[in-house]
């Protein structure tokens, strides 16, 4: 079957098959890559989901830190994007398992969003709680600060008051001591001037006295207690008495006796003693009072200091509570919370303790307010802690949801990747198998086609080679319908034709051999005939010379005739012109005659009118009628005559015209005659030259005839040679081997061939001569035409 398909179809079909296989492999590869691409796309989607989840987590953390609404918005956007992405990815998936996964992601995302919303609402609540807590804290802080402020102010005022009091007491005591010292000085001075009176010392003493008295006055203004005032009154009184006695003594001075003096001295010394004692008592009293005042103020101060300290400690403690609380809020560490709570408990306890210690109602009220504020603060703090704990739970659930979603996504991604890997594997396998198959089939087809082409071609080549060696008996065993088959058929036909040609050549060469002998004989006779021909050619030459003379005479006559004809033509033309002039004259005569005819008609008209008038005139017009009739007849006659002349003129015109026409026709005829005669003259000249040429030709012919005779002899010799060459040709053709079968094929002309192979020496000259011989013999033309 494959043998009978055309070569182009075979090769083309093979290529188409290989291309189809390649296409199939390509399609398989393409489909595999397509599915991988879709896998990659899905994995990418899942990655996007994970990325979005992570982004959401980041935003969530950011929100936990900043609490900005913008972050919330952003997060919501991310969540919406996430959901949409999950939905899109779900739509992309075809596997129910993956779709369920995506549903889970959606559910988790929803849970995450809910948890976040709860987290956010809790955050808001927390913020609110914190706000109120802060307000409470501020109130409590204000209360503690107010209290401590108050306490410190109280302390300060007390301290100031106490200092003034003590200073006063101290001044009193100092004044009393100074008084005592002045008294001592005064005593010393007095002793001095008593014993040895000098005006200067007395004056000093007086000054001291004045000073002392002024001091006493000053002291009186300072003292408040009536007891002390009495003391001062007494001191003053005693001292004045003392002074007066001293002055009395001094005034009397030397007039007194020693006893009197002593008496007087004793008296004022007693007075002085008295004052001194009083003064010492005052001094002591003052010192005692000072001591007491000092003691009292110290204990009071202690108490106050303690309270102020407690208040300060409360304020400090509460500040610490706030600090811890802030730390807790900021860090979320429960240690801080515990510290804050314990500190708050301590603060509360100390506040309660302090309130118990307060005696003043004002203070107590303030303390109660503080406690209340602290209580409320504690409540708020607890509420905040609860919110915080709840938020932690929400965050936990949020985290779980996010982690779960992330995990699902990661699972899905891993799933996608594993599927993708499996698909890549499968595609690779398919492509590999396809390529191997394509290569195998391609190689098979290539082998088949190549074998189908090369084998018969090789057979054909062997056939042709054997043919070239002269073996015409070979057979070509190729039976195919394709181009190679037809090539083989052509080769076979060529071999067959070659066989018949060779056979014919052999036959003809045989015939040639015999014919060439005949040619030889014929050539001899030709030679003889040529000699005869030469003689007759000489006779012809002399005749031609005679002919030449007569032709030249003819040419002379023709020239004379030519000049005569030319003259006749000119004369005929002149005749024609004369005739045309005659015609014109005739026509003018005719026109004139028609005028005469018109005159005759008019005359006739007049005569008719006259006749009519005459008829109308009746009898009187009778003679006139006759005249009119005569005139009319005359007119008629002249008219008739004119008409006749007219007719004659017209006839003459036509005759003259005919003559003119004839003459005109004659002129070209004569001219033509002249031309013809000229031609004859020229032809005669040509004849003359032609005859002389013939003459020359005859001479040549004579020569040629002589040559012919010698050539015929040569021909005879050549035909001898030809027969020898025909034999050689036979030998040459014997190179081709023909078997008996093929010899039997040509019709009834088989002849025994020479078996030996003499060397073939075909020379160009021999070939041409043999051709000439063949042509001259006319033997082989038909045979050649058959091929």
């Amino acid at each position, binding site marked *: 079957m494959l043998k009978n398909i055309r070569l182009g179809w075979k090769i083309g079909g093979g290529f188409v098959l290989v291309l189809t296989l390649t296409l199939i492999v390509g399609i398989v590869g393409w489909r595999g890559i397509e599915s991988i691409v879709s896998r990659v796309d899905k994995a990418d989607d899942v990655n996007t989901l994970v990325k979005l989840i992570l982004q959401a987590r980041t935003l969530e953390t950011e929100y936990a830190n900043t609490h900005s609404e913008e972050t919330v918005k952003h997060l919501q956007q991310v969540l919406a994007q996430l959901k949409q992405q999950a939905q899109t990815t779900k739509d992309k998936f075809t596997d129910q398992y993956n779709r369920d996964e995506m549903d889970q992601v959606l559910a988790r995302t929803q849970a995450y969003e809910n948890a976040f919303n709860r987290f956010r609402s809790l955050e808001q609540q927390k913020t609110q709680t914190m706000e109120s807590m802060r307000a409470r804290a501020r109130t409590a802080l204000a209360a503690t600060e107010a209290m401590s402020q108050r306490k410190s102010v109280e302390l300060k005022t007390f301290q100031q008051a106490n200092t003034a009091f003590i200073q006063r007491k101290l001044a009193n005591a100092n004044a009393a001591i100074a008084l005592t010292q002045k008294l001592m000085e005064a005593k010393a001075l007095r002793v001095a001037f008593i014993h040895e009176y000098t005006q200067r010392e007395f004056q000093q003493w007086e000054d001291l006295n004045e000073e002392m008295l002024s001091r006493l006055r000053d002291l009186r203004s300072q003292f408040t207690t009536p007891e002390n005032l009495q003391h001062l009154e007494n001191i003053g009184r005693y001292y004045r008495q003392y002074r007066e006695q001293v002055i009395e003594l001094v005034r009397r001075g030397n007039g007194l006796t020693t006893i009197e003096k002593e008496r007087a001295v004793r008296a004022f010394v007693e007075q002085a003693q008295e004052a001194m004692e009083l003064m010492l008592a005052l001094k002591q009293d003052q010192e005692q009072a000072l001591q007491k005042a000092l003691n009292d103020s110290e204990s009071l101060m202690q108490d106050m200091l303690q309270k102020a300290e407690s208040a300060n400690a409360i304020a400090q403690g509460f500040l610490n509570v706030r600090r811890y609380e802030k730390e807790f809020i900021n860090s979320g560490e429960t240690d801080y919370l515990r510290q804050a709570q314990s500190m708050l408990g301590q603060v509360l306890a100390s506040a309660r303790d302090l309130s118990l210690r307060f005696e003043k109602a004002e203070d107590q009220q303030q303390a109660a307010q503080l406690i209340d504020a602290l209580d409320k603060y504690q409540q708020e703090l607890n509420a905040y802690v609860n919110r915080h704990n709840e938020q932690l739970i929400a965050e936990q659930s949020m985290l779980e949801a996010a982690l779960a979603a992330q995990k699902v996504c990661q699972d899905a991604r891993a799933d996608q990747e594993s599927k993708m890997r499996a698909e890549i594997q499968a595609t690779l396998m398919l492509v590999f198998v396809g390529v191997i198959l394509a290569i195998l089939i391609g190689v098979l087809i290539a082998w088949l086609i190549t074998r189908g082409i090369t084998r018969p071609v090789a057979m054909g080549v062997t056939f042709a080679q054997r043919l070239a060696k002269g073996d015409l008996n070979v057979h070509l065993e190729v039976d195919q319908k394709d181009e190679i088959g037809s090539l083989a058929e052509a080769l076979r036909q060529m071999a067959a034709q070659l066989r018949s040609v060779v056979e014919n050549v052999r036959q003809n060469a045989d015939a040639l051999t015999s014919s060439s002998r005949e040619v030889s004989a014929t050539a001899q006779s030709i030679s003889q005939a040529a000699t005869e021909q030469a003689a007759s050619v000489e006779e012809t030459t002399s005749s031609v010379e005679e002919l030449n003379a007569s032709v030249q005479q003819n040419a002379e006559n023709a020239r004379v005739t030519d000049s005569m004809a030319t003259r006749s033509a000119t004369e005929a033309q002149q005749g024609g012109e004369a005739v045309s002039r005659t015609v014109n004259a005739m026509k003018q005569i005719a026109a004139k005659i028609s005028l005469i005819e*018109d005159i005759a*008609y*008019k005359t*006739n*008209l007049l005569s*008719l*009118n006259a*006749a*009519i008038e005459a*008829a*109308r005139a*009746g*009898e009187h017009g009778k003679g006139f009628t006759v005249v009119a*009739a005569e005139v*009319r007849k005359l007119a*008629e006659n002249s008219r008739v005559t004119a008409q006749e002349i007219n007719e004659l003129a017209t006839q003459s015109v036509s005759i003259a015209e005919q003559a003119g026409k004839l003459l005109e026709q004659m002129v070209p005829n004569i001219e033509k005659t002249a031309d013809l005669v000229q031609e004859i003259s020229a032809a005669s000249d040509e004849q003359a030259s032609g005859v002389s040429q013939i003459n020359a030709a005859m001479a040549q012919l004579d020569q040629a005839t002589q040559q012919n005779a010698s050539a015929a002899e040569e021909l005879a010799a050549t035909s001898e040679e030809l027969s020898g060459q025909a034999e050689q040709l036979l030998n040459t053709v014997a190179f081709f081997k023909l078997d008996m079968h093929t010899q039997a094929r040509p019709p009834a002309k088989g002849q025994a061939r020479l078996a030996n192979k003499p060397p073939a020496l075909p020379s160009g000259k021999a070939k041409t001569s043999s051709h000439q011989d063949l042509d001259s013999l006319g033997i082989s033309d038909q045979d050649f035409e058959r091929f």
Partner: protein
Amino acid sequence: MSESESVPENLHQYLTFFIGGERFALPILDVKEIIEVSALTRVPMTPNFIRGVINLRGNVVPVIDLSARLGRQASQINKRSCIVLVELEAEEETHALGMLVDEVNEILDILPGHIQPPPDFGTDIRTEFILNMGQVGDEFLILLNINKVLSIKELSELQALNPSMLETPTI
């Protein structure tokens, strides 16, 4: 007509003329004059057989194309064409009328013995126009009845037309 009785030989004289190659004849006393064709003034809105009017010594004379009047083609004017003036009496008035003929021939004497009545049919002319048939030699001449050819009725139409003709072109 009264003259014709007093001069009987004149009754036998006839004027012959050609119309469209045929010879017709008129009694000579009906003819007033033969004139050559001079300037013909065409009158619009007239029947085709009225060729127009001519100035005859200062008088307006209508010209009738006899060929057209006798139901043939209008005649072509050549140098032999003539106008034969005739007089007609109608309603106590004498009218001069011109008849356009191709050529006048001669005056012939036709004896009453050679006059035949008109045939019933066989000619392409309305027989009412034929007064008689006159024999001259071998051939017969048609003697036209001029009163029929130019009938009173048609003359009156002509008369009626004349004033309107004068006015029509101006309108």
